[in-house]
């Protein structure tokens, strides 16, 4: 998983879109998955996502990321499909377990939605610099920079913390704790005590981060400080029209 949020340098159309357009687009793509009740539309969104990441040069990474989401989606599918009791039975298993057509449709739609809806934001974040997000939110939406900076810092810290967690787990493994157990609940029980050292080191990191920002004039910053400006161009208009079309399709089809 490490690195799936990290910035991918490039010069594609997606890279050059206004950060706000990108956020809007990913929100719209995500929403359209839930506005529609058709498998075809959700699959369409997935294909669109993959096209986007291909155009930005990140198809390989998106596919790798989807694999882990597909695994989760499959798990949820299996868990869910047996619980829907309405509809016509299409498969009977022993122990009074059966699968209905409704159940299969509902669960598969749910799983597809999960995959389709998680991709857009991840793709957008990989082609957008964090500081552009915090700056554009402060400049265009007039959200105080303090909050937008906190938001992007939180996103940036996700991989740092997960690395830290992996480090702590590794240290415990070296002491003979078996984390690579297949038993999900056992794993949770083993990982839970690690939250304390993780919490302590996180607080320390956040403190360090605050000091470092302060020493580089964070408290002096005003909205006008931004060096880059974020104009909307033709490209953005095009992207927004496309987004509107996708939403319309999700509602109408």
């Amino acid at each position, binding site marked *: 998983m490490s690195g799936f949020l990290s910035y991918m340098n490039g010069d594609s159309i997606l890279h050059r879109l206004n950060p706000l357009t990108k956020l809007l687009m990913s929100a719209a793509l995500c929403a359209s998955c839930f506005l529609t009740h058709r498998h075809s539309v959700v699959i369409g969104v997935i294909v669109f996502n993959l096209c986007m990441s291909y155009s930005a040069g990140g198809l390989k990474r998106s596919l790798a990321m989807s694999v882990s989401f597909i695994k989760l989606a499959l798990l949820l599918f299996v868990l869910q499909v047996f619980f829907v009791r309405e509809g016509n039975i299409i498969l009977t298993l022993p122990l009074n377990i059966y699968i209905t057509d409704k159940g299969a449709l509902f669960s598969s739609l749910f799983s597809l939605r999960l995959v389709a809806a998680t991709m857009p934001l991840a793709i957008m974040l990989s082609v957008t610099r964090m500081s552009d997000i915090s700056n554009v939110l402060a400049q265009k939406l007039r959200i105080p920079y303090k909050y937008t900076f906190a938001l992007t810092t939180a996103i940036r810290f996700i991989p740092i913390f997960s690395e830290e967690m992996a480090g702590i787990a590794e240290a415990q493994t070296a002491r003979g704790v078996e984390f690579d157990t297949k038993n999900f609940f056992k794993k949770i029980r083993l990982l839970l005590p690690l939250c304390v050292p993780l919490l302590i080191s996180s607080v320390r990191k956040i403190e360090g981060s605050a*000091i470092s920002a302060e020493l580089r004039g964070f408290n002096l910053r005003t909205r006008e400080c931004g060096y880059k400006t974020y104009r909307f161009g033709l490209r953005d208009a095009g992207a927004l029209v496309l987004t509107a079309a996708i939403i319309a399709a999700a509602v109408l089809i």
Partner: protein
Amino acid sequence: MIRINSVSFRYGESLRNAISDVSLTIDDGDFLGIIGASGAGKSTLVYSINGVIPHHFRGDFFGEVLVDGMDTVQTRPEELAKFVGSVHQDIDSQMVASVVEDEILFGLENFKTPHSEIELRIEEALAAAGISGLRDRDIGSLSGGQKQKVAIAAIIALRPKIILLDEPTGELDPQSSRKVFETLRELNERFGITVIVVEQKIMLLCEFSKHLAVMERGGMILNGLVHEVLQRADKLEEAGVNIPRVTTLARKLRERGLYSGAMPLDLDGARVMMREAMRDAAL
């Protein structure tokens, strides 16, 4: 110039002083190394110089620190930061951006550097830190040594008179550590920037710094020119500092009357010493 006059500090919840009665004067253009065992108070001293103490960490602060005549108690840390640039111990937590260029831009924007100057400052800082090729890279994908240089570049862009680094090579291999120190030497010699660096690797300090300060349990037990400090092997050992092997060798040779020259600080010095000792032994 930095003047530290009898400074003591106790962290809020702590029972004893983290540093006690520390006095030190650091001249402009100096390259000062600070060494000492873990918990000796090195980071606390660093925080006292850049104003993080007493502004950020609360506690009992006594004494006086003057940076270019400004009293750290009365001056906001961000004002001091225009003169003193700091790189602290944990490098990952100090980054504020996801891309190298933006990391450098952050301080420039905050301190309202004229926009017409910004491009030049970024290029200059990247070049001085030797990372011009990394400008558009994702910071998460960089090595530890590269991240250190990014942090240094972000500071240099603000054109401080003094740079303060807390264990910049803590997580680096010997080769990257040397590279960081070479960068620091360059800043010191070419731009006249005062360098203050906390470092555990004594050999690096011997080779690169002009002055050496040794801390032990909150106190400053030695401070002076590098070769002077190295003479005090007893005190260094007491402070838990690994004495360089050439120093130990020099001491032994001196005790036997085989060598009387200057304390060698690097390989070249060691070569000169050995030549003299061999010649004396041959006589």
